Structures are given as structure tokens and as C-alpha cells.
């Protein structure tokens, strides 16, 4: 079964997601900061990364760019409370200052159903 890396500074949220994802049979590893996440994705080679935007020090934007810069094409699913209806314009081309190389995003508070659906979709297309 696929291995999923969750990068989020909120350990409680990680735990709640772990329960859900493990119940679906996924293997879950986690990191509580962008830096730690970068390390873990290098070493443990997850099949998908769930990444939070708002994190102290290295935020989700930076982490996503850093991951993609290494040439890694692991799909990234972003968790965000700020890309709400206001429309944060995610740009998809490298070099753009707003460049955000993520494949999909989920809004907080998380809807379990859509989280799983998005994960399944990304995994099946990669």
C-alpha cells in the first residue's frame, strides 16, 4: 500500500489524519516542520505528500518548492485555511514569485471524504 508523508506543525491534526488514512490501509509517516519533512521525503521516499501551508520558519510554499527543486515528482496535496473563497492565485510555472508546485489542495477544516478522494486520485494518476 502507498506511503503518505504528512507535513504539518499541528501534531493533533497529524494524529487525526493518521487514524483516517491508516484505516484506509495507507502507511503514514509524519513530520512537524518543513525541514523535517524535506529530510523524510528524501530518505523514506513517500508516494504522496500532504503538506500544510501555514508553518513557522519554513512554510508550505517554501517546502513545496524545495521538494520540487530536487527533481522529485511526488504528488503534493496542500492543506490550507487561507486559500478560501477569496482565491489565492496559485501559479504553476517555475520562476514565478507565486509559483506553487502542488498538485491539489484541501481546505481546512478538512473534509475526510474529499481528502481521501483527492489522495486516491493523485496516487492513481502518478
Amino acid at each position, binding site marked *: 500500500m502507498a506511503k503518505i508523508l504528512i507535513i504539518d506543525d*499541528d501534531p493533533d491534526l497529524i*494524529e487525526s489524519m493518521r487514524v483516517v488514512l491508516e484505516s484506509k490501509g495507507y502507511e503514514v509517516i509524519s513530520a512537524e516542520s518543513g525541514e523535517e519533512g524535506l529530510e523524510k521525503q528524501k530518505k523514506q521516499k513517500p508516494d504522496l505528500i500532504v503538506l500544510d501551508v501555514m508553518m513557522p520558519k519554513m512554510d508550505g510554499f517554501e517546502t513545496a518548492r524545495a521538494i520540487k527543486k530536487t527533481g522529485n515528482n511526488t504528488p503534493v496535496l496542500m492543506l490550507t*485555511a487561507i486559500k478560501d473563497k477569496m482565491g489565492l492565485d496559485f501559479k504553476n510555472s517555475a520562476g514565478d514569485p507565486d509559483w506553487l508546485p502542488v498538485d491539489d489542495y484541501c481546505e481546512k477544516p478538512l473534509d*475526510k471524504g474529499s481528502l481521501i478522494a483527492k489522495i486516491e486520485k493523485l496516487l492513481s494518476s502518478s
Partner: protein
Amino acid sequence: MEKIKSENYLINERIRWFIKLRWLAILGIVGAVYIADKIIAIPLPALRLYGVAVFLVIYNTFFSFLVFKPQAKTSKGLVWTNSIAHAQIALDLLSLAFLIHFSGGIENPFIFYFIFHMIIASILLSRRGAFLQATYAIFLFLFLVFLEYQGYIAHYCLKPVVPYCLHKETFYIFSVSVVFISTLYIAVYMASSISKQLKERERNLEKANKLLNEKDRIKSEYVLRVTHDIKEDLSTIQSCIEPVTEGITGQLNEKQLNLLQRAKKRSKSLIFYVNALLGITKMKLDKKFKTENFSFPQLIQDITENITPRARNKNIEFTVDVDSSIQRIEGVRVYIQESILNILANAIKYTPKGGKVSLKLTDKENSFLIKIEDNGIGIPEDELEYVFDEFYRAQNAREQEKLGTGLGLAIAKQVIERHKGKIWVESKKGEGTIFYIELPKQI
């Protein structure tokens, strides 16, 4: 800069008022000359008096053109506005001197009409400027009296109103002049003192207003931060409760499930509340308001799809009527959608089962009118004025529905006003409510 601009704006407003007043004065002059000439039959040079009126018409037209031009409001500075005010008052005083000359000179009680201009000068000009105009008026008056006294120019007697010609009565001239001069200076002194105080108060009010706005902004930023933090925690709470209620962590007994479901429901309603508060606060702080051009019927379609199931659940007849001529609208789609949704959701919520809710969109000449009508519980008359206030919920609404943010209508009002539109409500308790939204076609 801001201060000068607004002061300039105020003076400009007053100059406009002054010009309108002058049109009335011209009518008054023509009327008075006509009565004096035709009805009282005072032997006056009526043609020359009408001539002065024509002169007034000419320069008032000129100043109207200068001041009422659309760009005149903002493009010129304080110096320019001041010069216009000075020029108008000076021309008025000159015209008045001519009018007085042609209608009896020192005998004419209308000489005291000079006071009006002293008051206007005190309002429009600086104190120094007003005294300058007073001195100029006095000079005109004395010069006129002197020329008539010496016989350099003609004197038109006011017989039969004043039985004797007075223009050579030295003592009379002296006493009238003393009273005249002192009256003008005292009038300017008093009026400009009051005007100065008023100007100061205006400035203070403006300052206070700025301060209030700043404080309001700080408050909003604070609310934004707090709600954002609360939302983070709430989201996590919800994410933790959910898998347990759904049995992912193992079967729960009925009592456990019951309590957990209550906790879940309450955290959900709190998230809804926090989201509403976040939305309205963000909008308040959002300086740039990026509008887009979108299909209005499509938006109504989306709204209808959202509302129809809720209406069906309560067996409410929900009808939608959109003028076929309506195509696109300029605005922020998500905001407008949320506003209409909020009102419709309320309509459904506060209309009993089997009731009616309708949404009607009409094409007006320069705007779109959205009418949302229900035959629900209505809003008590004495509470109508508060329903758009933040956190306000009408008594009967609270009785019926314990949960509610009191923010839906406040958000709608904020949205509509940011679009330069209007929102208002008509309601009768027990009979129903109609909300109207008018959105201009051009923002």
C-alpha cells in the same frame, strides 16, 4: 494634504450655494425694480437698473461655468477657490454700489444689504480677506456718496418714498456713514469669529473621525487574528472527533455516540460562526476590491441549486424569476453569491413548512433589483432597523432558532455597499419579509 483638500471642497460647496443664491437675488432685483417702476411709480432709471441685473446674470453664468464643471471640484487648489470667492464678492459689491446709485444713493435703505456680503465673505474667506472686502465696500460707498455730494455724478431722488433729496445733507451723510462703516466692520468681526470656530470644529471632527477609523481598523485586525487562531484549533478538534464518531477507531455505544455527535455539531456551528466573522472582517480590511464581469443568470442558477434542496426539505415552494434581458454583471462573484445566499437561507429558515419563498431579479435602467420574499415569521417592526447590525438577531428569530451568527445580513449589507448598491427590508411580523438588493450596473 487631506485637510486642505476637504477644506477646499467645503468652500467649493459654499461657493456653489452662493451662486444659486445670486440667481435668486437677481430675480429679487428685477422684481423690486419692476414694482418700484410700474406700481409705486418712483421716477428711477429702470433701464440702467435692469442693466445691472444683466451684468449680474453675465458674471454669475461665468462663475457657474467655472465652478460647476465636473473637474473643477478636485483639480484646483485652495488659492484658486479663494480667488473665485474674492472675485465674486468684489463684483457683487460693485453691482450693489451701482444699484444703490441708480436708486437714490444714500437715501436708499437698501445700502444695508452690504451686510449680507460681509457675512458671506466671513464664511468663504479668511478673516483678513473679509475685512479687506469690508474696506472695499466702505470705499465704494463713500466714493459714491462723495461723487453725488459733489455733483460729479447724477443723484436719483427717491421721491415720493423719501420726500427730500438727502445727498447734500452733510450731517445726515456723516451719521449714516458712521453707522454704515461700524455696522460692516462689526458684522465681519462677529461672522468671522463664528465661522472661525466652525472651521476649527470641522477640523477637529475630521481628526476624530480619522482616529476612529484607525481604531476600527486595529480592532478588525485584532478580530481577524483571534478568529484565525480559533479556527485553527477548531478545525483540528473537528478532525479528531470525526473519525471517532464514524467508528473508524472502533464501535461506540449509543451514549458515547450521542455525546460525540453533539460535540461535533457544536464545533461545526462554531466553525461556521468563525468563518462568517473571518469573512466580514477580511472584507472590512480588504482595501482593493477586485471585481470581475460574470454571468448573473448563472450565479442565480448556482444559488438556486444550493437552496432548492433546503426548500424541498421543509416543503417550501421556492420560485425563481429572472428577467430574460439580464446578462452580465460587474462585481465580486463570491461576495454577491454569499449575500444572496445568506438572505435566501434566512428566508427558508424562518418560513414555516409549506410556506413560500421567491427570488425575483429585475432589470432596471441603471441597476438590477433583487427581491427576496417569504411568507415566514417576519421581523417585529421595532427591530427592523437593527437587522443589518453585526451580531443582531431579532427576538422571534432567536426564539425559533437558537443557533445563528447574526452576521449574515451584516455581511450582505457590507458586500452590497462595497458594490455601491443598496439593501433594505420590508416586513410584517407573522406575515412575511421582503428583502431588496439594488446593484448598480456600473460600479
